[in-house]
């Protein structure tokens, strides 16, 4: 009885040591993975910041204005007369009925 208990205890000791080692090893690996991912996130965020700035720079009104003037030479700024609401169009009868469920233009009255 006694020798077998000792053997069992030693076995349990070795098993738990192995388990502990495995967990410790895993933790180290996961921690490295976490710090690796954190670095990558920071890097991606930095890249996103650069791209957002680039996007805003490409969409800046001054650039669009210059591009339009250079390439769309037949266009000019819209005159107030060219703006209107669908309701103001001189359509009658079924045409008006057919368009009544369209959303209004995004202009305030």
């Amino acid at each position, binding site marked *: 009885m006694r020798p077998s208990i000792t053997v069992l205890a030693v076995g349990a000791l070795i098993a738990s040591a192995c388990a502990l080692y495995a967990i410790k090893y895993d933790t180290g690996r996961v921690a490295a993975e976490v710090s690796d991912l954190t670095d990558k996130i*920071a890097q991606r*965020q*930095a890249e996103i*910041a*650069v791209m*957002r*700035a*680039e*996007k*805003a*720079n490409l*969409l*800046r*009104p*001054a*650039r669009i*204005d210059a591009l339009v003037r250079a390439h769309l030479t037949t266009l000019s*700024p*819209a*005159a*107030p*007369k060219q*703006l*209107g*609401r669908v309701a103001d169009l001189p359509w009658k009868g079924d045409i008006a009925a057919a368009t009544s469920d369209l959303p209004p*233009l*995004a*202009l*305030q*009255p």
Partner: protein
Amino acid sequence: MSGKPKAKGASRHHRRRAFVLVAATALAFSVEVGQLALLGLKGSTAVRSDPVETITRNVARPDIVDRNGRLLATDIAMPSVFVDPRRVLDKDEVAEKLASALPGIDQRQLLSDLDDKARRFVWVKRGLTPAEAQRVHDLGLPGVSFRDEPRRVYPAGEDGGHVIGFVDVENHGAAGIERYLDQQNLTDLTDGATRSERAPVALSIDIAVQHTVRSELERAMMDFGAGAAAALVLDLHTGEVLADVSLPDFSTGNAALSLQPNRLDRVTGGTYELGSVFKTITLAMAQEAGVLQPGKLYDATQPLQVGKSTIDDFHPTRRQLTAEEVFLHSSNIGASLMALDVGEVAMRAFLERLKLTTPITTELGRVAPPQLPPRWGKATTMTVSFGHGIAIAPLQFAAAAAGLITGKQLEPTFLKRAVTSAPGSDAALIATRTREFLGALLQHNVTNPEGTGKRAAVPGYDVGGKTGTADIPGKGGYGRQGVLSSFLAAWPMSQPRYLSYLMLWAPQPTEADHGQTTAGLTAAPVTSRLIARISPQLGLAPVFGDGGT
């Protein structure tokens, strides 16, 4: 494990050995404890950290966006290069190679910095472009390293520079809203290039409107050969400044230019004698004081003589004028007579009520304080009535005019207001009758073919406004430097929503205008184009037919 009983002598021998062992261990422990106690008592003077030069901590700033969320300023991580002099093998080689890879750095300064072996950290250049960083990296010099730092970039380019401001090399705000962010503690100290986690700061500016105003002013400067131009657009419901342009300006990427006095923000940073546009205030004041009896006429048949100076009209009519005609023909004589009717005490009280006599502040800092006449006599009362002898920052004047047009005191702001109406007192600034009277005057001045503001009309937007042509004071008295032409406009006059104030410095006479540089021929048509372009951008639909003109 052994079943055999042990000898008595051997047992005693074992016990003695165990005792020696325990005693030795105890002795060793007590020596250790004693040593620890000694160290504790002596303090840590023997232990000293290596003195290392403090590395500057970086500042993370929140993004700045316009009122529609378009990005105007943001932090991006950029490498900065530094040297550890102790790890440098050949300081001459390092200094020379770095200077050739990074044009613009001071090689001599760098060499003397590298001489000091006590230093462990010397900045070479901060905020490198990727190409510069690659060049330095390719040199492969020991002791030369990189460190990522947040750098401020301004994607909107030349638009809105005066409002946004700029930062110094450490990313601290130095001007404009950037300085305001520092004052409000909206920035965070960080190590490395961490981005701010704060919500973006939204300006009242609409960058599309800002650009449109800027491009129209640029065109006006070319058309009229003007030396400078400025304009602002106010939301009359909230007091938000939708556009603030002052030309010549500077790009946020080239902040050093902002120090040139010619490039200051004229809207908030300078005071000017604004001229006849001030009659808007004079007429409202006369109506509020009750001196405008129906049918009362003002004698503009001949110039007024006050002491040594003469007051005459730009467009002399040489006849009796009604109050409305005084405004339509912009008669200096009529306005002077009205101001005399009101009296200097009531006039000063009215200007105080409009907050035109005390400095105002905005998020951009203190607006240039008004310059009032040092002594206020009869002559001053008369000249102030048509905008001379009193110099006011355009923003402050526009806010006062907005108060007269809406009937409520308006506090201008450069930040987007969360509420749809302006904070502060809802108490009426002036009587409803005065507001309606002034509104009709402004409207007629544009719709009436005899009005000085007729060229500001925009079909569908029911514009009202007043011209101002002031001689610019300078060497040799008034008028030698040309005139300051300006136009104050509000629209739609049925329910005023927006106000613009536009100024042109020293416009040159053009052939089409028969050699005239008055505001009716310069600032008014520019304002007309401006309103036609920005109203749709602001979502204001034109009204044709009964409501519009």
